[in-house]
């Protein structure tokens, strides 16, 4: 029996790009780098218009608060700074850099020459911060802060390679092509967080990668591979912890409260590269796929490259494309502008066709109830939310919903359950804010 959790859905995986090696995209003419790509305070620009910047040069930071520095991904000239609307509805400052195609790397970057065993935890955390590493699975919490919060509390590191969203194969490719980066990055994290045990979590649809990783591990008592049943959303940290240990995270609890700390596979690779070459986080691995993408690929792209450049590199869109989604199809965000850019949290760009419109109706079949990983009653939540009975929603624990979308995926009546729930949660949060 493979490790797994209760609820969730088995879905059509669409892992079309699992055999596509990671390619490096041709450098774009412009990149637009947003000053906020992480949870925390936005960065303040460290460069002015007209400045020449080099690859890896720090162009934004905010030392006073929880934040994470941002580096230039190409060499060139800062052409302008502008505020742009982002998908979450807020304005963020962007630094637009014109490429000089010299590919010059900042001279400040240098490999870490001291042996890992002789490097203190504080030193590593400092280095991780300087490399601009954030959680690259989508939440983009600054990694250095996560390490700090785990010291003394967590006893096991989980490296999340579950990659449970459909279409996404980039972690799979990373594991196959650079297993040593993930493993060595994990060792650095273990040293930093003073933890003696790490588990690399992989779903059983990637057994080749699991073998590859296991072959590259020298000491299995320190780092080990755990294989999980392929089921969405196994990559959710609650369900990873539950499948591993049977512990259920309470609402508001962090993994560190129950002895775990979870990092993304790509974050490990970036940390490893920051130590061996000195290069901070300036490029992102993404899967470009979807029925309407002419030639799907796995790509390494510079941070700040526009979706248009990426899509052009992948042969463009077919005429029936209805929407572009960043991230997986389950929890990703639909974009309205192809000038949007790839940031540290971008894991995928998907071009999808339109859905056939049908009148939604609930027949109370209860599939959403069985699929709910949080064990809620999605059908009732959606009904109460749609008639604005938010008090009843609250009583039915709507705030425990993690918006994984399983209910909506499985619904035979095509009820937009998770959208109803999101609306209600937003309303309830707004009321809470008013009370304060």
């Amino acid at each position, binding site marked *: 029996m493979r490790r797994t959790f209760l609820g969730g859905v088995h879905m059509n995986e669409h892992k079309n790009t699992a055999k596509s090696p990671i390619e490096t995209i041709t450098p774009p003419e412009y990149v637009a780098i947003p000053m906020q790509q992480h949870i925390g305070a936005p960065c303040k620009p460290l460069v002015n218009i007209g400045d020449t910047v080099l690859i890896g040069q720090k162009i934004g930071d905010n030392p006073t608060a929880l934040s994470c520095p941002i580096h230039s991904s190409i060499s060139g000239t800062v052409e302008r700074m502008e505020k742009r609307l982002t998908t979450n509805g807020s304005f963020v400052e962007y630094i637009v850099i014109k490429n000089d195609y010299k590919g010059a790397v900042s001279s400040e970057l240098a490999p870490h020459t001291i042996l890992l065993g002789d490097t203190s935890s504080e030193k590593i955390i400092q280095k991780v911060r300087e490399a601009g590493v954030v959680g690259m699975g989508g939440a983009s919490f600054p990694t250095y802060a996560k390490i700090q919060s785990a010291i003394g509390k967590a006893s096991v590191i989980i490296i999340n390679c579950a990659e449970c969203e459909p279409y996404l194969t980039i972690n799979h490719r990373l594991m196959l092509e650079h297993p040593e980066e993930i493993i060595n990055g994990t060792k650095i994290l273990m040293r930093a967080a003073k933890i003696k045990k790490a588990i690399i979590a992989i779903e059983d649809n990637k057994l080749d990668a699991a073998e590859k990783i296991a072959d590259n591990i020298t000491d299995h008592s320190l780092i080990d591979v755990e294989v999980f049943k392929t089921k969405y959303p196994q990559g959710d940290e*609650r369900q990873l912890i*539950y499948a591993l240990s049977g512990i*259920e*995270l*309470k*609402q*508001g*609890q962090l993994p560190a409260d129950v002895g775990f700390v979870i990092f993304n596979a790509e974050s490990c690779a970036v940390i490893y590269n920051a130590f061996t070459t000195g290069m901070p986080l300036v490029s992102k691995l993404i899967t470009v796929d979807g029925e309407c993408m002419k030639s799907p690929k796995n790509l390494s792209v510079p941070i700040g490259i526009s979706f248009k450049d990426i899509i052009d590199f992948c042969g463009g869109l077919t005429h029936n494309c209805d929407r572009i989604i960043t991230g997986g199809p389950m929890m990703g965000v639909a974009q309205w502008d192809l000038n949007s850019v790839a940031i540290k949290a971008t894991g995928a760009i998907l071009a999808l066709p339109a859905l056939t419109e049908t*009148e939604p*109706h*609930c*027949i*109370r*079949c*209860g599939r959403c*109830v069985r699929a709910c*990983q*949080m*064990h*809620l*009653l999605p*059908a*009732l939540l959606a009904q109460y939310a749609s008639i604005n009975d938010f008090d009843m929603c609250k009583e*039915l*624990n709507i*705030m*425990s919903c993690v918006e994984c979308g399983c209910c909506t995926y499985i619904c035979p*009546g095509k009820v937009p359950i998770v959208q109803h729930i999101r609306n209600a949660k937003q309303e309830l949060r707004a009321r809470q804010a008013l009370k304060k």
Partner: protein
Amino acid sequence: MTDVVIALCPALFWSIYVFGWRSLTLTILAVGSAVGFEYLFQYITKRTITAGDMSAVVTGMLIAFNMPVTAPLWLPVIGSAFAIIIVKQLFGGIGKNIVNPALAARVFLLSWSNIMMAFVQPMTSISPISVTVSSETIDVISTATPLATLKTGMLDQSLLLEKFYGFIPGCIGEISVLMLLLGFIYLLIRKVITPHITMSFILTLAGFTFLYGYLTGNASPFEYMLHHLLSGGLFLGAIFMATDYTTSPFSPSGKIIFGIGCGLLTALIRIFGGYPEGVSFAILIMNSFIWYLDKWTRPRVFGGNPEKAEKKG
């Protein structure tokens, strides 16, 4: 919904074999008028037409399955009109009805009790197209169902095996337990329903009737129990009506309580009530409890109840 129609087909074929083509005529009339009334209602009230979604087909089939083969041809039309317009559409359409439309229609049709109780022996030849079946041409009224015989306390002469494969007087769709079980297995394999309601319903009735038979000093309580299980509409109700999504609870424990309630009420009505059959009433009564059952048997939220967690923190 197509799966439910497929699952109902063995019972339909069997009744055509036992009661002749009139079974099919009645079923087609019920299905046709159910779909027709749904279309008409949605057309007149300018709603989205969903009459083609097979749900009305299932309702129509179940209405026909719940009447004797001697029923006049206008009876299924009236039944479908009541089920679709009053029970389903006036409550808001698919998924909004508070009781099972086909069952409500059956209980409504019981107001023509002489028609609804006019059972015939298997293999009686009846015209498939004549509007009414005259009691003068066929000896209909005299045949009591096995359940009615059971009510008087005597075990009737028909063999249990005959009841199992369905060679007894009864409603069109309810006579063959074997054919209904085939449908049940199909529904389970296709994962259309879970076994919770059906099993708890049948087992509760089995336990209660066995106990009753034992306590009242029946010579063979086990046989008495089997007669109860194999007679009447138990399997039709437990497999196809009690498991209706819209009128049954969400959670497994809720489903089991629902099934137990149905079983108990059926036994009480059959044994102590004035009417030989209690399945329909039992399910309709339990239908009205589902909101409470949903509330009482809410699954425990992952990580525990948030309010409690806050207090501890």
